[in-house]
């Protein structure tokens, strides 16, 4: 069985992506507080919701990235085969 190696770089990239999701959701939280006339304390009080929403966005992105990666991998493989023949 082949070992799957997760590189340090990959972990770093994933972490950055997740943090970006959290930041985006917190920005959405700021927008929500302004639009929905909420309290500014919700910036911290709603961190739980923000993290859950960030996780949902991160997982959604991961699925999209995986799908794109697979398609790209297949396309690249086909091109290499053509070149070799």
């Amino acid at each position, binding site marked *: 069985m082949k070992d799957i190696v997760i590189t340090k770089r990959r972990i770093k990239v994933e972490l950055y992506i997740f943090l970006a999701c959290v930041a985006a959701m917190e920005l*959405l*939280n700021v927008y*929500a*507080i302004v639009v*929905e*006339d909420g309290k500014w304390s*919700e910036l911290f009080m*709603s961190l739980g919701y923000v993290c859950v*929403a960030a996780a949902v966005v991160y997982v959604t992105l991961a699925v999209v990235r995986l799908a794109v990666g697979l398609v790209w991998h297949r396309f690249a493989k086909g091109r290499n085969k053509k070149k070799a023949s």
Partner: protein
Amino acid sequence: MEKASISRRKFLKNLGLAGAGVLMASSPWLSAFAESDKTSRYKVKIGIIGPGSRGQFLMSFLTKNPKADIVALCDIYQPSIDEALKLAPKARVYRDYRALLDDPNVDAVVITTPLDRHYEMAMAALDAGKDLFCEKTLCYTLAQCYEVYQKHISTGRILFVGQQRLFDPRYITVMKMIHDGTFGSINAIRAYWYRNNNWRREAPPELDELRNWRLYKQHSKGLMTELACHQLQTGTWALRQIPNKVMGHGAITYWKDGRTVYDNISCIYVFDSGVKMTYDSVISNKFYGLEEKILGSKGTVEPEKGKYYFEETEPAAAFVRLINDIEHDIFDAVPFAGTSWEPESANENKGEYILGKSPKEDGTSLMLEAFVEAVISQKQPERVTEEAYYSSALSLLGHQALEEERVVTFPDEYKLNYLNHVHNPILK
């Protein structure tokens, strides 16, 4: 509002401290406890007339009260005497209540007999100079209730009626909130008591009427006097008004077993302001249990459950609302009319406990303590008898409305000078 759990002792202690003045404005009968610290060396000698199941229940509290001593029992049903003697083994036993009333060793009597016997026993007890605790309903007819009330006034003896909600910490606390306007304007009260049993006790045929007196019109007025009496009082307490009209209907729809009292009743009490209090009782379904829903413009109270609910609850976090708005924008169908046609769905907020936790006891224990304190201090607590008089009167008038199938108006001659009522002796 402090929502800490309040034990019976702590509640009494609070009455003596900061809470006393505040709560007494809403529940003035709590003055019965004003001198409770100074009465510990006194003992009230009590006689129980009719120590059946309810009588024994009351005895179970009195025997725990160091200021009370049950010295006499009276019943014609030997099994009741035998059971009662287990609670008060030293008590003298009488077969005739008049002999018990002649006993100079008895300071006060508790009457827990069938309803139709209350009047003669209560009048005799007050005439004999005994202080009196009478189980609700006070009497079988409104005229009898009025006479007993007048006898209590003329003799100056203490009179309590078994309206334990008046001493229930949940009710006392929430009534204060209601009177302070916490729940806005109270415009409706929906009281009900549902059970699913035949209300019948095992008894040989010759003792059926004696044991099952609640089921026969000649002894009781059924659901109105045995159940409604407690709950109607909640309405007058909350609104600080007495309703002047009642209409309703009663029938035997399920328990067609020879009983003569209704097993299915529905009444509407109308206050002068137009506010209504409805009362329903059915004893062939218990799903909803019992409750008095007090509906205010800002909130709802369910004192039996020990909870209240505000109409407007704290909104969800802005972030959640925004997500919900987005979700609704994407998935909801576009309405082609305004939203006024949409039905109001029931509010599902979980509410708050009045005393910070689920209720565990009613006010029976405190009510009996208050009675004992009143007998020792010889001070009739303010309004306690008037509240009880009107709860009896309203249940009897409700029964009259069921029987006669008409709108019954409160008779002027039986009004007391109390709240919105003015007694008119000329009409009597």
